[in-house]
């Protein structure tokens, strides 16, 4: 296990290095940043000033190392548009997205894992078919549509929940459901197919032949195996929720990272875009690490 963790940490460090390089260079790939920042009517002199001011005239590796050095010191730069340090800007927006993502993931897991297990216990039964309908609907409905449906149903018709903003915990419920619902089908179908497979396996037959309880058979000796691919997929889904919740944040007027990214791209706010890219990529890498470690805890055969 020790060696496994060391190896896995090494891989994560490499991934972080590469993602930092990519997020840094994306700014340059999208055209001359100095021209973009100077605006349409800038004179060549003004562009040149900006280029020197921001160090765009220096060699690429020098710019990169300078940037990485700053990032490691916690200095994410200064927003050209908001005229403010990037770090406090992120600190304002991150909690919104993080809270939304965690709630959405919790909703997805609490709905889809039990549904997947129940569907697997009686394949092709009514409940299995019903779960399939829910899954297909979730998979095929874009999140802006489910968001609007939720707003209409629970916000406008029933008036149970707030539909806009981030003022209280209740504000997060509808967007979390909209975001989580989109991730549910994959998790549910994966749980179902994994459970069907594991319930036919020899060690579950052993548990049955020795009179163990349904809970022991289904959860201890069944779900523990079926959940392993689910962990990996749920992690990716969670990363997606954190980085790609732009649509849901927009519909529910939430000022999260997704919304900030969308605005910053429109404003060509280079420093902010870089910081968001870096944070989202790093989150992905750390989530993948967490998923691998969790799977190694679940299945000892992975710890090699």
């Amino acid at each position, binding site marked *: 296990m020790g060696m496994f963790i060391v190896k896995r940490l090494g891989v994560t460090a490499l991934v972080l290095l590469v993602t930092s390089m990519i997020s840094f260079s994306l700014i340059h790939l999208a055209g001359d940043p100095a021209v973009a920042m100077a605006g349409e009517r800038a004179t060549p002199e003004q562009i040149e000033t900006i280029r020197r001011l921001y160090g765009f005239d220096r060699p690429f590796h020098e710019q990169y190392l300078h940037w990485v050095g700053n990032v490691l010191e916690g200095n994410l730069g200064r927003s050209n548009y908001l005229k403010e340090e990037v770090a406090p800007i992120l600190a304002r927006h991150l909690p919104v997205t993080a809270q939304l993502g965690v709630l959405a993931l919790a909703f997805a897991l609490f709905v889809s894992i039990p549904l997947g297990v129940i569907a697997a216990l009686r394949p092709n039964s009514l409940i299995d078919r019903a779960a399939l309908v829910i899954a297909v609907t979730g998979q095929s409905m874009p999140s802006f549509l489910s968001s609007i449906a939720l707003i209409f149903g629970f916000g406008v018709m029933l008036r149970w929940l707030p539909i806009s903003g981030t003022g209280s915990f209740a504000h997060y419920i509808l967007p979390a459901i909209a975001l989580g619902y989109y991730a549910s089908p994959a998790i549910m179908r994966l749980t179902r197919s994994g459970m069907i497979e594991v319930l036919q396996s020899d060690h579950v037959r*052993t548990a049955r032949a*020795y*009179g163990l309880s349904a809970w022991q058979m289904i959860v201890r000796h069944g779900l523990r195996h079926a959940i392993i691919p689910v962990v990996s997929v749920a992690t990716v889904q969670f990363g997606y929720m954190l980085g790609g919740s732009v649509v849901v944040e927009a519909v529910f007027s939430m000022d999260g990272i997704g919304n900030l990214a969308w605005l910053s791209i429109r404003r060509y706010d280079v420093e902010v875009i870089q910081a968001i890219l870096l944070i989202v990529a790093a989150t992905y890498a750390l989530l993948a690490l967490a998923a691998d470690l969790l799977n190694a805890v679940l299945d000892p055969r992975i710890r090699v």
Partner: protein
Amino acid sequence: MELLLEVRGLRISIPTDGGVLHPVRGVDLSVGRGETLAVVGESGCGKSLTAQAILGLLPRNARLEAERIAFDGMSLLGLGNRQWRQIRGRRIAMIFQDPMTAFDPCYRMGDQIAEIVRWHRPRNATPARMTEMLAKVGISAPDERLGQYPHQLSGGLRQRMMIATALLCEPDLIIADEPTTALDVTIQAQILRLLADLQAETAVGLMLITHDLGVVAGIADRIAVMYGGEVVETGSKAAILDDPRHPYTKGLLDCIPTPGETGRRSALGFIPGVVPRPLGALTACNFRDRCARAMPACHRGTVPLMPMEDGRLVRCRLYDPPGAVPVREPQKTLRNAEGVA
């Protein structure tokens, strides 16, 4: 001998798209307390399904009918889940063919053995009792083994673990379904020896399912030879091995190589053809198409099990004496145990 397990008129049918399969067509078996019965037959003869049916472990799509399946005087037909949990493991323990997959790879051996034993015999679920049993079934360094995961153990060790688990449950009957088939030849002999010794020592009843009429069936007191879902010959070990009557039993014995016999003259025997697909009801002897001694009578009607002068039973027209009375006329099923959990 006190009767421990009694199976009468066991039939298993499986509806498929191509018609209803009848892999078990009216099987009678019995095991006495402390007795070893070997159930022998080729793949597909219904021996494993018979074992599963006894413990109520048939696949969901299989239908079970039987006149009687009784254990220690108590009927096992139509038991609910709660009742089964008192029987499985505690009264009848099972040892499986493939020890590589019989344990859950996610848990340490000690934890999963204890999980089972704690339910049936809590006082045996202590590390001390478990290491003691592991040592008894020939596992070296038992303390260390209990802390290991299944994938860290060899096939032979895992089968010993399975046997230890079964014994820790202190059952009255152990059903061993091809317990040595998946193991290396040298390990096979060890495991078989172990089973025979432990059976003699603990006086547990043993139902040994095997396709090996030679070595494996050799540790049994009685042997039942199955073919195509029926018992075709059953009797004492000596009767079956030394003086087989049914052409199928003879064929099985001829398939076993004898050490020392080499060369073309003593070519190894074989039975031509394969076990017929168990589709539809029988109208004649099931073995007739593969039998060298088939005669017109074999094609007329099903063949009953007939008692021989030495007490054995044979299902073959060759031994039809004029006016003989079959053991039992085929009967209508008395009880339908469909829906057993």
